[in-house]
């Protein structure tokens, strides 16, 4: 007669771990190590900032480990610059060299918009994978995961601008102003980028899946980036209704301000108009994103 009684006993023996003592997993943990003092009832602003920076660090490390995630923002500016320059250059400005001066500052504005799209996708992915559950069960500021994602995305902005400017200079673009105005130009582009990031965050929180984020993003970024002065500084040949749209579009004012700061021309009113828009966008989308975040996750 064969029975598996002995085997069953063996299974039981292996589940009671022989010689488990204080050195086992979790053994040396101080119980309630966090409870030396009573728990704090609120999270200080300083801690909130530290939390956001930690999570920004996470995003930067992620991109360092998987640089292929930056491929889109590295290829896009190069492809756009070369295509627009050689397709439109002769027709619009008489020569590609003349067009490059108009086009590159315009593309700085356009890419500041496009580069925000990846953020929403990444955020939506984090939520679906449960990573945000961990953050939300930790004593961190509520705003930290979102703010961290936006701050960490600075790397993406740098990659886009680096590639765009590098290619532009290689193709013959020259700055006609000084170092400070040029830095100010990219600073303005970053401010706008930062503001638009919150729209991307909002879409990432609303979208049903990471795959849909990009589709939704394209729909609203296309009219804003192409219905502007990005490709032409002279918009007088456009029909009246489009001129009206171009005039209120903050992307137009960003492009014109960047033009002024890199190749010379009026800056002040364009910069102020664009900054006001950026402030307005953040004022509306940040609280909305926080509300959605609290509800969604």
């Amino acid at each position, binding site marked *: 007669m064969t029975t598996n009684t002995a085997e069953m006993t063996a299974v039981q023996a292996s589940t009671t771990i022989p010689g488990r003592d204080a050195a086992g*997993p979790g053994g040396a943990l101080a119980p309630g190590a966090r409870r030396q003092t009573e728990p704090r009832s609120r999270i200080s602003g300083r801690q909130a900032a530290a939390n956001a920076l930690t999570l920004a660090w996470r995003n930067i490390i992620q991109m360092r480990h998987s640089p292929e995630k930056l491929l889109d923002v590295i290829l896009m500016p190069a492809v756009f610059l070369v295509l627009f320059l050689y397709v439109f250059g002769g027709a619009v400005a008489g020569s590609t060299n003349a067009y490059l001066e108009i086009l590159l500052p315009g593309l700085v504005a356009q890419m500041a918009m496009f580069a925000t799209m990846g953020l929403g996708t990444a955020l939506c992915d984090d939520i679906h994978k449960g990573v945000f559950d961990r953050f939300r069960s930790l004593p961190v500021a509520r705003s930290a995961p979102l703010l961290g994602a936006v701050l960490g995305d600075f790397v993406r902005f740098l990659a886009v601008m680096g590639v765009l400017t590098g290619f532009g200079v290689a193709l013959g673009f020259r700055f006609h102003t000084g170092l400070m105005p040029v830095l100010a130009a990219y600073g303005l582009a970053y401010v706008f980028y930062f503001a638009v990031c919150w729209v991307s965050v909002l879409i990432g929180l609303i979208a049903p899946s990471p795959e849909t984020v990009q589709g939704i993003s394209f729909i609203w970024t296309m009219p804003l980036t192409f219905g502007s002065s990005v490709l032409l500084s002279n918009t007088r040949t456009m029909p009246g209704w489009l001129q009206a749209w171009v005039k209120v579009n903050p992307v137009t004012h960003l492009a014109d301000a960047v033009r002024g700061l890199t190749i010379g021309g009026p800056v002040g009113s364009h910069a102020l108009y664009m900054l006001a828009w950026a402030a307005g966008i953040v004022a509306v989308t940040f609280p909305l994103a926080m509300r959605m975040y609290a509800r969604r996750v």
Partner: protein
Amino acid sequence: MTYAIETEGLVKRFGDTQALAGVDIAAERGRVLAVLGPNGAGKTTFVRILATLLRADAGRALVGGYDVATQSVQVRQLIALTGQYASVDNELTGTENLIMIGRLLSMNRLTARSRAREMAARFGLADAAGRAVKTYSGGMRRRLDLAASLLGGPELLFLDEPTTGLDPRGRNQVWDTVRGVAQDGATVLLTTQYLDEADELADRIVVIDNGQVVAEGTPAELKARTGGRALEVRAADRLATAQVAALVQAVTGLTPEVRQETGLVTAAGADAAMLAEVIRRLADNDIEATEVGLRLPSLDEVFLTLTGHQAGDEPGTADSTGASAPDAGRAA
């Protein structure tokens, strides 16, 4: 404050689905409480409310004496959660994941780093700690998740089906960790579908079904209510199945359940003495058996006893014979 976790009439609804229909539980400090129930019983919803990830529609929950709805900041300083799906960052390495948690818990850079190294070593991840988590196996991922949860030395640990999808070795490691955490004085609330897991780890078990507590007690109390262990015999020759059933009935005085397709004869409510007698009589009658043993009742059987219906079924239907606990084997 005697209870680490106390809930009163917790209700949660998702559209038409009543996930929780008034759950009252109390977990003593420093003990392991298992919430046992089938898929869809409301276990995950319950844990997510306690871990401040979801808001209850009605009722109250206190964790460490703080209200999860109004004092979530305090609650989050006391708890750690390891969910059904490992919530670690795939793109980062094991060490980077742990450092990030340490930094979020306001440790300085140096402390976070040394704590990360310590935890990785304790969970057998020292060699893999420098690799991206996406290259980890399921068991390693779960261990990293636990290491992340325990990094801050939480007072309360919530584990949502911590061994689902793990191989026996991985499961034993998780069990080992839970015992260690409880030994160190933390309170553990774990959800599980497996009675043997609850039996192995918990001081108290709460059985929930359709969002309600249907039974509560120590493992011994619950097992007593479900009629002790099940005696199983399978004859090598299928033709002898009827003979085995008669023999089991004669020894135990119970009406055994006979599964014709597998030849398995099961008598619920048996004990070790009966097992010995059955083995002796099988030998006397020269019946060769491929399987003879006593095992804990499966979750299906517990449910049948406690609720009158099979786990996962609508109340009133008790005809399905579904899956049971992963390891039925445990001899007397």
